């Protein structure tokens, strides 16, 4: 009986701990610690890289970033990222001068291809930057998009 009670306490304890971790953002696989909040608070590429705990990754020709040269409406800018880097595990999209730099972060489990299409908002003519994590290392690609009408209002 005592053993049952101990087991129950143990299980309950670990569930509570898991909940605590989840609420602190510690359970997130991509960024350890409470970084999840701060990465979205970054106001520039440098701040974002700091929050992610990485240096400026090198450019890679294995990342293809497709975006329009001119976007008439900054509220809907289509972007497609194709990574041919082996073991691509994360794709991070950001817009350097947007009020909040980080747009979206995708975790690609094994078996998911290095490919994402989405639509983003851009406040002005700016660089769209993509960070790709492959085999534990970050790489980068960027492209300038001229914005006729800003979409961050």
């Amino acid at each position, binding site marked *: 009986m005592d053993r049952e009670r101990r087991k129950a306490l143990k299980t309950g304890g670990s569930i509570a701990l898991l909940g605590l971790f989840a609420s602190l953002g510690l359970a997130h*696989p*991509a960024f350890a610690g409470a970084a*999840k909040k701060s990465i*979205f608070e970054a106001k520039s590429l440098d701040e974002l890289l700091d929050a992610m705990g990485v240096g400026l990754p090198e450019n890679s020709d294995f990342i293809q970033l497709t975006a329009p040269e001119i976007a008439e409406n900054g*509220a*809907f*800018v289509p972007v*497609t990222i194709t990574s041919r880097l082996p073991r691509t595990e994360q794709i991070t999209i950001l*817009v350097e001068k*947007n*009020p*909040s730099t*980080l*747009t*979206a*972060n*995708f*975790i*690609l*489990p094994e*078996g*998911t*291809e290095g*490919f*994402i*299409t*989405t*639509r*983003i*908002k*851009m406040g002005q003519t700016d660089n769209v930057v993509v960070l790709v994590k492959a085999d534990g290392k970050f790489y980068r690609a960027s492209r300038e998009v001229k914005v006729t009408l800003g*979409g*961050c*209002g």
Partner: protein
Amino acid sequence: MANPMKIRATAKEGVTEVRILMTHEMETGRRKDEAGNLVPAWYITDVTVMHGQRTVLQGQFGTSVSKNPYLVFRFKGGKPGEKIAVKWLDNHGESRLDETEIVE
């Protein structure tokens, strides 16, 4: 209750392509309404896509993903008839789960 998503999953040559259109305002918190008051930020923060019991994509959004977020991605495997489930969560704690079957 949030509006349903449109999801289409197509299997071709061993790869499943998933297209998702979510319905969400994605307010940045910087826009002003007609009276000049700031409209509070209201946006999707997390998206998870499952193929059966397996997570095939996890996304975290900031405020600069466009209104009614659109997403396309691909994963290896997936057969017609199998289930794809997409769940999102927003910064108000509201969530939405929709499912579809993979088609050929």
